[in-house]
């Protein structure tokens, strides 16, 4: 159900395209806003200067009495031209006496005063038209000269500039979009190649990706994928080996059991029959251990997420004592004693208990089986720094130097001696310890035998 709610993410290409397009558009837009703003300011500054200049000119003309007041207003329209783009009658001029009568005005100026009785610049609405006005008072003649600009004309000027900018932008933007789309596609070619290489292969193909050079950005992906493929094929190989080995390991004892049973059935004398029956019973015990180890192996191999439910905390010395107790019968049968030696105030191990037990049981079982008749298996535990160690020592033949590196391999039984085991014990120990972050160290014991040390990391320990 949840899956249905998750929308398909948009493609990387579309995503990049949209981001780049948005960024480009924002850039263009802010340029337009800025140009609009600065153009408007510039136009205002220039036209205002012209307004004030025109007003002063009219005022000085009438002061010198060179021009009649009534004509002067008309003179203030020096740039009156009639063009199609509507910039005609740009300036209007009015001359008012200080007592409020209209002395003169330019041709298209409105009849009402363009400004109130203020000096300098002001902005007013007269007859529904907005004017920018500059007023100057001529005290000699007792008149006020007002020169005004229609704001509408000013806006048209600015808008013309902006339109001149936006029009090419509107043409460029689609072109730019196409260019971005193509470039992004081109940039993503290595990714496409990898996707095609992956998509085209069958599910069983776990070979590494083609060894073509890949860009730095997707190299981690390619490395991770190849690593995953390698681990998967290793796991598959492992499983194949496991099946073959398990078949061998189970069928061989079965063949042994059957052979001994047939010998017992056809034995010509009681001694032969008795011998066969004794071997038969021993064989069943061994096969039982083998089956248990195979099951142990399967359970320590199980997927990690299944383990979370099984995490419990139990004191280290309690676990050791329990495992030793379970192996007491085996030890007695071989005339071997197990000696436990360590403090009672151990921390708890916070881990799936069957992993801990499987590791320790297999170590002790190995030690018992390696021990000579009447031998002693010493199990001790102590703290080293923040970690805890437990050691299992025997006086058996020890591990041969040539086998030392391979003893934890699955089904490896040693090239010399040690033919009795399944070759699973130490592999189970190692796998189980890997799961809980523990470390197995095997060292020759001074005076003969082997010492197995399990280091339990601080992270797996809890105070109880």
């Amino acid at each position: 159900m949840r899956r249905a709610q998750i929308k398909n993410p948009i493609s990387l290409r579309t995503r990049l395209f949209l981001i780049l397009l948005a960024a480009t558009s924002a850039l263009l837009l802010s340029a337009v806003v800025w140009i609009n703003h600065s153009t408007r300011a510039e136009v205002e500054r220039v036209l205002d200067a012209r307004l004030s200049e025109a007003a002063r000119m009219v005022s000085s003309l009438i002061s010198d009495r060179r021009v009649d007041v009534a004509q002067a207003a008309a003179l203030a329209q020096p740039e009156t031209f009639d063009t199609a783009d509507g910039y005609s009658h740009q300036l209007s001029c009015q001359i008012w006496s200080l007592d409020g009568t209209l002395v003169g005005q330019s041709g298209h100026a409105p009849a009402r005063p363009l400004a109130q009785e203020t000096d300098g610049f002001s902005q007013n609405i007269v007859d529904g038209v907005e004017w920018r006005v500059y007023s100057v008072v001529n005290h000699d003649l007792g008149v006020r000269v007002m020169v005004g600009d229609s704001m509408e004309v000013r806006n048209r000027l600015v808008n013309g500039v902006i339109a001149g900018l936006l029009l090419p932008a509107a043409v460029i933007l689609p072109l730019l979009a196409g260019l971005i789309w193509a470039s992004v596609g081109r940039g993503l070619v290595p990714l496409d190649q990898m996707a095609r290489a992956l998509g085209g292969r069958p599910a069983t193909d776990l070979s590494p990706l083609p060894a073509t050079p890949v860009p730095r950005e997707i190299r981690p992906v390619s490395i991770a994928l190849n690593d995953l493929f390698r681990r998967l094929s290793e796991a598959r190989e492992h499983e194949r080996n496991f099946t073959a080995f398990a078949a061998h390991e189970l069928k061989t004892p079965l063949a042994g059991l059957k052979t001994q049973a047939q010998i017992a059935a056809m034995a010509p004398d009681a001694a032969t029959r008795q011998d066969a029956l004794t071997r038969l019973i021993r064989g069943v015990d061994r096969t039982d251990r083998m089956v248990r180890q195979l099951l142990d192996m399967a359970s320590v191999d199980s997927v990690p997420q299944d383990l979370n439910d099984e995490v419990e905390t139990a004191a280290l010395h309690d676990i050791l004592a329990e495992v030793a107790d379970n192996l007491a019968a085996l030890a007695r049968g071989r005339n071997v004693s197990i000696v436990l030696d360590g403090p009672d105030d151990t921390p708890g191990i916070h881990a799936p208990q069957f992993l801990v037990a499987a590791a320790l049981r297999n170590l002790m079982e190995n030690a018992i089986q390696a021990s000579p008749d009447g031998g002693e298996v010493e199990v001790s535990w102590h703290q080293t720094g923040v970690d805890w160690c437990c050691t299992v020592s025997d006086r058996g033949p020890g591990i041969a130097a040539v086998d030392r590196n391979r003893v934890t391999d699955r089904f490896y039984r040693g090239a010399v001696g040690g033919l009795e085991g399944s070759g699973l014990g130490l592999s189970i120990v190692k796998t189980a310890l890997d799961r809980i972050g523990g470390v197995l160290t095997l060292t020759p014991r001074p005076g003969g035998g082997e010492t197995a040390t399990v280091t339990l990391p601080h992270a797996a320990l809890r105070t109880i």
Partner: protein
Amino acid sequence: MRLLIVEDDEMLREGLAVGLRLAGFTCDSVATRADADAALETGGFDGMVLDLMLPDGSGLDVLARLRAAGSILPVLLLTARDRSHDRVTGLDAGADDYLGKPFDLPELAARLRAILRRSEGRAAGHMIWNGLDLDPAAMEGTRDGRNLRFSRREFTILRALMERPGTIIGKSTLEERLYGWQEDVESNTVEVHVHNLRTKLGAAFIETVRGAGYRLARPAGADA
């Protein structure tokens, strides 16, 4: 017939040795590839039962080495992997027969007898000479309508002589056939067993060739 058993599992190895001894074979057994190679170099075997998965290598390597040295020793492979592909690999590597685990002891003995027989150039199961019909599978014979039973050692000597009638077989060769490594050779046993055989088959059946060994006498009435 002396067999080399190569099997790493102790219980099965011991079982094979005892079981095949009961079936009339003399057996030596080893557990590793290295020991198998060493034993084969010593020689004196009539056949080999070979496990495929050995702790220090594959039985196929033992086989390959043996065949590379030009040996035609009959070899029967024993293995847990008895799918068709594995059987083909084993037979192509030079094995004479193949048996999957677990197997029937009587069947194993019968297959061994068959490949040994063929290696001697015989197809018939029974060996016939001078009126004696010897059944290797049952370790019995009939002569002049009488049923004859032989002990394992008597049978081993008789069989060795019947394989090549008329050829002189040395005493040491017979001793080698009789005893595995683990057994002590008693100085006069061959003589004792030959004596017992003469009691059962008639004094003239086996001839003593002074200083050389024994051979089967030619049938009475045949040309000299």
